[in-house]
């Protein structure tokens, strides 16, 4: 019984990081109606930024977190102007194709650079023991940082002028433009924010698990599940959805082979799409 509880707690810790990744996806989706298919590749960028900074430059592992937030923001603004800007307001297929192309380019570059062999970054954090069960220090730290970053995002969106402008543009872009808000810049910034969130979640995942250039796809799919659980364009819901997904993984792990976990997850995904098409935690949109 305690074993299951320990597994569930560990699942929740990892789930908070899934939530952070999904926040990046859902923010972009909610603000500009673009499904960012380069999301997984950006998660991988975050992983390799950790690898480069720690293994090549010898930085402390969590020092990579603020670096990745800034770098992700800059990369995101770059990607916005390269592949997204001209797709805004066009049929969704256009932005799907262009972000998918960005995804392929990023993965291709990564494969050329690092090949597809697995990488591992050793991060030493003291573990916490409780009744004979050990909770890995990196999992606890990653979850704590994910919650802190989510809190900062909330403060940004609800208590700063620029964050309110992001929400205004998400609600009604034309009205925002008529208010004097430079909406194109706001969209670029929101894309940068979304990419920074995806990237930093990759950095945190890489402190916990080994990874390859191709790891992104799994996290992209998880982000879709989380987004469906949490409701579209709803960052708070994304965190809840991530934690819910982690909880389900933790709950299922003791009872079945690991290869069955995706079947449970995507079974849930289909179930939610049918039963709760607006998301389970969707309380913001009326």
């Amino acid at each position: 019984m305690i074993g299951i509880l320990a597994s569930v707690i560990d699942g929740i810790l990892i789930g908070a990081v899934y939530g952070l990744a999904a926040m990046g996806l859902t923010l972009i989706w909610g603000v500009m109606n673009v499904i960012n298919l380069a999301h997984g590749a950006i998660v991988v960028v975050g992983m390799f930024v950790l690898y480069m900074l720690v293994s090549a430059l010898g930085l402390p592992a969590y020092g990579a977190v603020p670096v990745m937030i800034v770098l992700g923001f800059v990369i995101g603004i770059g990607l916005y102007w390269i592949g997204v800007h001209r797709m805004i307001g066009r049929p969704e297929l256009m932005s799907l194709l262009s972000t998918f192309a960005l995804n392929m380019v990023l993965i291709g570059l990564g494969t050329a650079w690092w090949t597809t062999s697995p990488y591992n970054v050793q991060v030493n954090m003291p573990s916490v023991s409780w009744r004979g069960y050990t909770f890995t220090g990196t999992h606890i730290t990653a979850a704590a940082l994910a919650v802190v970053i989510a809190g900062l995002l909330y403060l940004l969106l609800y208590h700063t002028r620029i964050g309110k402008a992001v929400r205004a543009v998400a609600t009604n872009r034309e009205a925002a433009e008529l208010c004097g808000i430079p909406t194109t810049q706001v969209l670029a910034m929101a894309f940068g924010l979304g990419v920074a969130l995806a990237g930093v979640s990759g950095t945190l995942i890489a402190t916990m698990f080994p990874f390859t250039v191709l790891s992104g796809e799994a996290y992209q799919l998880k982000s879709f599940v989380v987004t469906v659980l949490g409701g579209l364009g709803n960052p708070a819901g994304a965190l809840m959805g991530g934690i819910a997904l982690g909880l389900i993984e933790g709950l299922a792990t003791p009872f079945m082979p690991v290869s069955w976990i995706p079947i449970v997850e995507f079974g849930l995904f289909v179930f939610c799409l049918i039963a709760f098409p607006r998301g389970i935690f969707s309380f913001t949109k009326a």
Partner: protein
Amino acid sequence: MSEILLQVEGLEAGYGDVQVLWGISLKVARGTMTTLLGANGAGKTTSLRAITGAMCPRGGKVVFAGEDVTWLPAHAKAARGLVLVPEGRQLFNNMSVEENLEMGAYSRRARQHFRQQLDHVYTMFPRLKERRNQKSGTFSGGEQQMLAIARGLMAMPEILIIDELSLGLAPVVVQQLAETLKGLKASGVTVLLVEQNLHLALALSDYAYVIAEGRPFLEGPSAEVAAKPEIRQAYLGL
């Protein structure tokens, strides 16, 4: 005549293959209220959208306070004080009243006067002050229109352009809004009004332009336009 604040010459605009405006021209003098009239589909809303940059004009010229602003994006025009209160209110429904007003004052110029203008707007619409933390999506039509006008005023407009002031509102609410507009004009705000209620528009305004099928049809001081029989023709297409 006093200084011309807004001058539109030969404005052309359209959607896709359909051209809607075929050379609209008008002038608005500072401190006056001007109205733009016409039947449904005559191109009133399109004119306002092309003037304010909500859509891109195809030709013609928009001169505002002596500057050619024809090709500026809407946010840059709003920042200069060329402000549109759009048809259908277009509020940020999941944001509070105060957040809506804060967004109205987004430009650097308007931001500097935020506090003072907020007090001014709350004095004008005490109802909004009472409900400042409520989400605007829960409001009645009249309250939403008040908020839309208030949000426009937060931008420190040199000219406030209002599209369909009374659309979908109860007569008593329309009366209140008409009083508000009179007050605004008395305080020196320049207004360009599009209004489906012909009598209201002509009673409130100093000068009127009538357009038909995207072209200028008739213009003159409002009292004279009201007396002309042709106005019927513009509306009924006879």
